[in-house]
């Protein structure tokens, strides 16, 4: 177990800079998830920490010790690969024991004991004599995790470990990894492009974009207070609606915005640093939109499509001049049919506002993590 500190980490391949001066601190026992679209450098960053790629510039510290020049083993990392990378000619026992035999100089009995302990944690006891090709995807994944954790590394690294599994198995393995972290309390760094995995597993999410850190924060923080348009659009499924417009009336508490193709809207954001008429983008999540029938003064939008998902429905509204439709989450049963004309109502307290650089204008009534929990508990009592 250890804390990891990245200082000014840069990585170039040839003339191309992939990772740009990243500073990050991972605390002892923390579960950190790197998330971002493909090609954002998240896997490269993980491989830099693992020691599989050379750091071009900057320093990497583990427990205060500079480890730039150390091998993965000397750094004390264990890694789970996307393709599992099990040794196909060895059975499960040998796969897990391989690193133990090389490293410790421990006797056979000791190794057997360690492997057994690992196998018990991951419920691999009955599979120890099987070859990887005789295992299912989930079992292989567990063996890969077992191999990484058997040496009790200071840091466990996961490189998109679930992306080769099918959907239901992925949910199951996600839970198992979360349980494992609770039990081992070791520092874990996890790379994924799946923001659901990031949200569910992480103590701290690092959103990466084009080799930069966009934002670091708890899942709650990232969801409620995205600092940039990129994070706002990336976290959440379905995506947040991003509506371009101009600032009609700036304010320290509430701002009024004229949205292209939709009309005026209000949001609880502090836009006092901008002038009226500035280009802004309003972000609103599908669950924070309501629909109502148009009145005489309204400019209604046409319903393009309704997606029924069982527990909820998504209504797609055609915004004139916009490339993306406006998505509204509706409870089921949902009476809306395609072709209907409806008016979207934006929840003032839940809207986000971004300036034309994509930087956020602070929300004035954003909920705090503990506050929401308390409110719900009180509601349950009443």
């Amino acid at each position, binding site marked *: 177990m250890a804390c990891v500190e990245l200082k000014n980490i840069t990585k170039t391949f040839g003339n191309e800079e992939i990772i740009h001066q990243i500073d990050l601190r991972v605390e002892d026992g923390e579960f950190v998830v790197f998330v971002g679209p493909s090609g954002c450098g998240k896997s490269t960053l993980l491989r830099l920490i693992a020691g599989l790629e050379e750091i071009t510039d900057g320093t990497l510290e583990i427990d205060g010790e500079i480890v730039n020049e150390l091998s993965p083993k000397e750094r004390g990392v264990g*890694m789970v690969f996307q393709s599992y990378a099990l*040794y196909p*000619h060895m059975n499960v026992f040998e796969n897990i024991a391989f690193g133990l035999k090389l490293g410790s100089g421990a006797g056979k009995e000791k190794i057997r004991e360690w492997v057994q302990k690992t196998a018990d944690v991951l419920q691999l006891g009955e599979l120890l004599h099987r070859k990887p090709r005789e295992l299912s995807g989930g079992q292989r994944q567990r063996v890969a995790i077992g*191999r990484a954790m058997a040496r009790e590394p200071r840091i466990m690294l996961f490189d998109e470990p679930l992306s080769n599994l099918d959907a239901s198995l992925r949910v199951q393995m996600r839970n198992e990894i979360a349980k494992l972290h609770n039990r081992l309390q070791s520092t874990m760094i996890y790379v994924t492009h799946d923001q659901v995995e990031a949200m569910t597993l992480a103590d701290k999410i690092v959103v990466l974009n084009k080799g930069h850190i966009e934002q670091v924060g708890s899942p709650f923080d990232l969801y409620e207070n995205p600092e940039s348009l990129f994070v706002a659009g990336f976290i959440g499924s379905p995506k947040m609606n991003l509506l371009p417009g101009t600032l009609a009336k700036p304010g320290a508490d509430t701002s009024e915005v004229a949205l292209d193709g939709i009309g005026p809207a209000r949001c609880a954001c502090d836009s006092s640093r901008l002038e009226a008429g500035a280009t802004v983008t309003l972000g609103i999540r599908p669950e924070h939109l309501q629909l109502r029938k148009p009145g005489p003064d309204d400019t209604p939008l046409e319903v393009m499509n309704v997606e029924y998902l069982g527990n909820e429905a998504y209504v797609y509204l055609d915004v004139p001049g916009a490339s993306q439709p406006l998505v509204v989450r509706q409870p089921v049963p949902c009476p809306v049919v395609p072709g209907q004309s409806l008016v979207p109502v934006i929840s003032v307290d839940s809207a986000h506002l971004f300036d034309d650089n994509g930087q956020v204008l602070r929300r004035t009534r954003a909920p705090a993590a503990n506050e929401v929990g308390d409110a719900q508990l009180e509601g349950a009592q009443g």
Partner: protein
Amino acid sequence: MSAKPVLSRRQLKRYVGKVAFLFLIVAILLFTVFPFYYAILTSFKSGSELFTVDYWIHSLNFGNYTSVLGQQSFLDSIWNSVLVSSMTVLIAMLLGVTAAYALGRVRFRGRGPILMIVLGVSMFPQVAVLSGLFEVIRAMNLYNNPWSLVFSYTIFTLPFTVWVLTTFMRQLPKELEEAAIVDGASPVVTLFKVFVPLMGPAMATTGLLAFIAAWNEFLFALTFTLTNDQRTVPVAIALITGGSQHELPWGTLMAASVIVTVPLIVLVLIFQRRIVSGLTAGAVKG
């Protein structure tokens, strides 16, 4: 007539195709197997029977075999051949695998040119290097010694071995190597504990071909050895003589040929499973 023909055009075409295909197979089989079959046939004949043309084995006469195996020099040659071929394969595999690891997995300047040079070396005909090699072997004091053959065969086998193993080595997933690195394995351990077991099929194939080439080689074996007890089998067979200058002991020759071919066939049969089997299954996503 309104009755349908017995065979439609399409059916007829298919039958003709099948017959033609079968005919082709038989022709190829006959072409490739007949000489060997005739050698076996001849090896069971003796005396004047040799000169009657037969296509079936009428009687099993092991006289030729006993007379061949009764010669100490022939047994010596078999032993020499076994030694030379196995040592050639062993050394070529060891050097080939290590070279393939460097050429296939390590990025360094001049990797392409090195591979090309390796390939270029193998293009020279044996005769072209014969005199030069002879001098080298004299200088190394290996003349009339089976190790001179191990040395020269290894030179000629290595380019092929290196190329095949390099190609195969490149196909192994990169993550396996990285997993081994994370597990703390040195390159040597990675090579021999992780890669070599996975390269079984490739190594069986190249090793077998190297073995066959070394077993059957004639020119070097003739040039670099002098005495009967140092010769390998192909030279020994070629130098088997009859009672007089004008008599060729066909029966004995054929028996000797059969004896030295059988081990090769057995080897191929043993290793063919390994050649076919895909050992990498289950390594990565499957």
